[in-house]
């Protein structure tokens, strides 16, 4: 498994078999081939996750371009204007990074999954050391040697590790986000790069199954 080198990017997942996007809920069996062969909706949903089109950055542009659910262009036929208007008012949450002089705000509604969110952090905090944490070659910031773990405060006031619950549940319950120095986050022991990588790929692979 390439978790050693896997990072929070939107490149192709290592193994495609059980992570291939299909039209059914995880656990359902394959639909039989009784339907007549014709252009099928499922033909259109072999979405490559993120993909090799984005050549400049490792992270795809922070939009709903790689959705958690299969989406076909222009379907259902609702005007984008109406779709935008009907969204609940944006879900803006504060993002604090330990050691950074000021906070940022992100609109969680703009992201379709954890992967995009972490990429968003990379963009937001590019002037900070966090960029190096997410960089596939280095998880350590050369300046202060810190690693960061994303945590969030939920509606009940508890501080949770980002990534445990399904994305939509997270969006609903997240009040604010804190990128914690991992020395605080994990009982004083430093998360190794491998641990972080495993965690990151766990988020990634979870998303694939949904």
């Amino acid at each position, binding site marked *: 498994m390439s978790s050693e080198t896997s990072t929070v990017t939107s490149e192709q997942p290592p193994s495609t078999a059980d992570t291939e996007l299909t039209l059914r809920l995880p656990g359902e069996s394959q639909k039989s081939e009784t339907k007549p062969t014709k252009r099928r909706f499922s033909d259109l949903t072999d979405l490559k996750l993120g993909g090799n089109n984005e050549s400049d950055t490792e992270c795809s542009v922070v939009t709903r371009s790689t959705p958690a*659910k299969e989406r076909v262009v222009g379907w259902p036929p609702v005007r984008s204007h109406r779709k935008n208007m009907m969204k609940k008012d944006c879900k803006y949450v504060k993002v604090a990074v330990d050691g950074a002089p000021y906070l940022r705000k992100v609109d969680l509604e703009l992201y379709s999954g954890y992967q995009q969110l972490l990429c968003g952090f990379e963009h937001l905090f590019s002037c900070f050391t966090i960029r190096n944490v997410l960089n596939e070659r280095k998880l350590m910031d050369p300046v202060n040697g810190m690693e960061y773990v994303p945590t969030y405060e939920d509606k009940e006031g508890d501080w949770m590790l980002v990534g445990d619950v399904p994305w939509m549940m997270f969006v609903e319950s997240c009040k604010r986000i804190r990128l914690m120095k991992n020395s605080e986050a994990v009982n004083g022991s430093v998360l190794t790069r491998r641990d972080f990588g495993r965690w990151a790929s766990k988020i990634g692979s979870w998303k694939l199954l949904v």
Partner: protein
Amino acid sequence: MDPAATGVTVAGTGADPAKTTMFPEEFLKRTFSLINSDKDRNSVSLVCKDWYNVERMSRRHVSIRNCYSVSPEIVTARFPAIRSVTLKGKPRFSDFNLVPDDWGADVQPWLNVFATAYPFLEELRLKRMAVSDESLEFLALNFDDFKALSMLSCEGFSTLGLEAIATHCKNLTELDIQENGIDDLGGDWLSYFPENLTSLEVLNFSTLTSEVSFDALESLVSRCKSLRVLKVNRKINLEQLGKLLVLAPQLIELGTGTFLEELVSGSVNGLENAFSKCGNLVTLSSFWDATLLHLPVVYPVCGNLTFLNLSYANIGPDELEQILGRSKRLVRLWVVDTVGDKGLEAVGSHCPLLEELRVFPVDPFDQQLGVTDSGLVAVSKGCPKLHYILYFCQRMTNAAVITVAQNCPNFTHFRLCIMNPSEPDYLTNEPMDEAFGAIVKTCTKLERLSVSGLLTDLAFEYIGKYAKNLETLSVAFAGDSDLGMEYVMRGCPKLKRVEIRDCPFGDSALLSGLTQYESMRSLWMSDCNVTMDGCKKLAEEMSRLNVEVIKDEGGDDRLANKVYVYRTVAGPRKDAPPFVVTL
């Protein structure tokens, strides 16, 4: 009846030019000036040359439903006295991102010609056109009598363009901006209306997102005594709305702002009072963020409402019932599927006069149930006058639609969108063929049909066999083979607009419509099995059609992924971007 026996010379016999008409030109002119319907005028113009000429000289309004079907020069040459133009551009599927940016439909070439030919132009209504700020400024500066601008689903302009309109159109009566791809730069365009502008009758900026100066708005509403339509945006709160209502109790149509704020009870009373003075209100819309907390402020006017647009209000069945219980005169109702089947039962119970219902999905990608077959049946039971339905749902059954057809045989517009493509009847797992079969068999007046769900060629056989009045057809993810489309193209004589996506229809199907296309406005086919060869063949056979292929990046060169076919007297487009290939 023998015309000779009655002593009347029938105009248009054409035989003897000396006695082609008994009616003096002045008489014709006066008579025709009373005829406003485009359809009637078109018929009149076909009678004979004299009638054609008198008609064309007296026509004041022209509707160009496909801006590429004719050129501005041809239009202005035929109709020299136009004061009002309706212009529609892009194919409808552009609303759903199926048409690339910069495809065309630029309004500027039209404005350029109109500036010389129609300097007295008063009204311009645009739909799916590309409109730039420069164009809006051009419009504002070149037409001194300009009065009414309406833009629906247009894009390319910003609030800067609106500033130009507000500044220069001294006689503006109507500014109607709806659902456009507008760059809302804020900037307070509303304040650009001069103090002495008092002519406004229609002001709709409900879909702009940035704040406007409330003072400017208040002053505008206060001095425009003829204001009858006011639709504000989400930035206007209830308290501000109340102030506006006090200034304009004569309103006929109102679009509210947001209901979000919590008002003190004094304000609530004031607002209710303000509403109660609006005796002419028949249309209410917007209702952003509405909850049962402040919805009651509109109750005083519910009794008069004929059109209630709640499609931006994510309310539930209870809120809906409260409103509907007081709105017995409703004719048109738009809601979001958050009202659920229970809400639709309330519709069936309270709205016996209902003729049109639209149910939009709150989140098209959310798998939550929303409304289902039972809601639709409930409405059909209680609303026998229903003739227009737009219904987004996750699942449907044949049985339900068959029942609906029996309850409401007068459908003219039946648009059913089962949101999961190719979804079968969820109870029987069968295709939805019988559902649409029932609709076309029973509803003989059907003009517009949108189909969805799992459909075989049989559904299309039904459509071709029974839907003899069908004008507009939308198809997606349906059919088995070319036969499907062939049934329709051969069977439906009144087709005007056909739009198809993601269906297994190929060249044979495309060519089966050969004889139809010239009497149709347009055909759109995307992600079907049409090839470039098929398109070339069509183009060769029919010289008065534009057969355009929109090329995708990459992809097989032999396939024609997006095809747009339309009749035209203007020849191939001169402004086609590189990715649009006319064959």
